[in-house]
């Protein structure tokens, strides 16, 4: 049983295939990592899944729903959540609002409801506020809930982005370098949360450059190069491949 399927997905920019005929499946309950040199097409692959760009060929399926022709918001509604490389929290919104607005199915998002069914919207806000508090507590930002997101440190912004992502209740989580640029403690916290999310039966995919994290933390590794997935397997196997070592550690390591 797996949740996210890619079938022969191709995307060309000009004459170059940024993603070239990739077929992959990502299983529920597991954390998969995409690794590979810069320009291998990892982020492009995320953009294709997330609907930010459309594939030229191939299909992307999540729980049997075809995502390959959907807009980003439709993809998100279908249960695929995305965390961007540089967190992209809403800088001038409060930390709490960043999380609150991510919850799906809010009646108050309709202008009519928020004007003419204010008690009902208020009750829902009250419940969501509690859930937001719980999420903020998980990432350790509850005390900062009233501050503007731009006042947070970079690591805290990444934690906020994780909380926001969880609030949108995705079943597939795509995270572009979730631990880049944060302290080891914060990285540990983020990885711990992701481990829990995966254990609850969700699918987690990360783009990761830190090979320590890949080797200790990830269940499956896909090595990408020139728009193709050239190696897939368990981390200990992939990281032992001489070619991968060559890319990551330089020629002298082989």
């Amino acid at each position, binding site marked *: 049983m797996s949740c996210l399927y890619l079938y022969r997905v191709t995307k060309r*920019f000009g004459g170059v295939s940024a993603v070239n005929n990739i077929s992959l499946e990502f299983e529920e309950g597991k954390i998969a990592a995409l690794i590979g040199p810069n320009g291998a097409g990892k*982020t492009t692959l995320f*953009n294709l899944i997330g609907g*930010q*760009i459309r594939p030229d060929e191939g299909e992307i399926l999540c729980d049997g729903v075809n995502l390959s022709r959907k807009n980003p918001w439709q993809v998100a509604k279908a249960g695929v959540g995305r965390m*961007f*490389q*540089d967190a992209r929290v809403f800088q001038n919104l409060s930390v709490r609002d960043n999380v609150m607005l991510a919850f799906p199915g809010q009646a108050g998002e309709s202008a009519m409801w928020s004007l003419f069914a204010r008690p009902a919207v208020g009750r829902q806000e009250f419940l969501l506020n509690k859930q937001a508090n719980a999420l903020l507590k998980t990432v350790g930002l509850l005390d900062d809930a009233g501050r503007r997101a731009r006042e947070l440190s970079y690591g805290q912004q990444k934690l906020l982005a994780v909380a926001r992502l969880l609030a949108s209740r995705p079943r597939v989580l795509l995270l572009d370098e979730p631990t880049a640029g944060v302290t080891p403690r914060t990285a540990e916290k983020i990885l711990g949360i992701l481990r829990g999310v995966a254990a609850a039966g969700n699918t987690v995919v990360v783009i990761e450059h830190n090979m320590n994290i890949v080797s200790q933390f990830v269940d499956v590794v896909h090595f990408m190069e020139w728009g193709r997935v050239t190696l897939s397997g368990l981390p200990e196997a992939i990281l032992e491949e001489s070619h991968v070592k060559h890319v990551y550690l330089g020629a002298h390591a082989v």
Partner: protein
Amino acid sequence: MIASSLPARIPIACLRKKVIDQIVANGIVTGCSYALVAFGFALIYNTTRIFHFAHGAVYTFSIYVLYSLQTKLAVPTWVAILFSLALTALLGVGIDEVVYQPLVRKKSSLLLLLSSLATYMTIVNLLIMVYGNEIKVLNPEIQSTYVFGNVLLSRLQVNTILFAVAILTSASLALRLTKAGRMIRALRDDVDLLSALGVNPRFLRWLVFALGSALAGVAAVLQGLDVGANPNSGLLMFVSGAVAVIIAGGRAFEAAIVGAFVIGVLHAFAVWEFAGRWEESVTFLLLILFLLLRPEGIFARTRRVEESA
């Protein structure tokens, strides 16, 4: 049946051919002015990414300077024109120095656009306060006309074409052949690159604003001598120029010239079709149509999704 209807149709067809030739000619003349404004706007917009609304006011300013010099000082026309172009270039540089430069650091295109719009309003309303809202005649002489085949053009219209072609060609060549021109073309591709290489981008910006504004000034002078000075004409010219740049889509400055002629000819046809009181709306209708129907010229070329804000 076709044969029987032919004799009746031929004279009409001849007439239409003649009318169409004249319309196209008028469109090309208007297109020349649009092209000058558009080229200037493209120079500024493509290198600084500032949606330079005030370009329209710069255009208007130049006509009124000419008007003042002609009526108050009675200097020869060509001296007045050169002087007004110099002042126009100076105004362009001044706007960049006073209004845009302090905002560049904030990296917000919305701030720049609002400031530019406010600059437009300031200059145009100052001009109205000084000169009034009525149209001023700059060139009361009756124009001699020339006939080219089916087409009748006034001397000024012929001059417009000659001047526009000469100036646009030399500007385009200067951008390719001179050192400063090549740097401006590099500025178009990457602002940061130049400062990294040690070229002073500030000086290049002055050059861009001076040249861009002077080009608008040339269009203003040519149009002004033809139809007079009107404080609100700058907006229409600016919009036409901006649309030309948008149609062109790409980043080549010369592409805007093609766009300008397209608009000029379309405008001439539209005016002939719905003449009179709807004339000015045509430009704006074309604006909307181009914005909505030609999105590929409008959206930024494919970037990494993360870069778009």
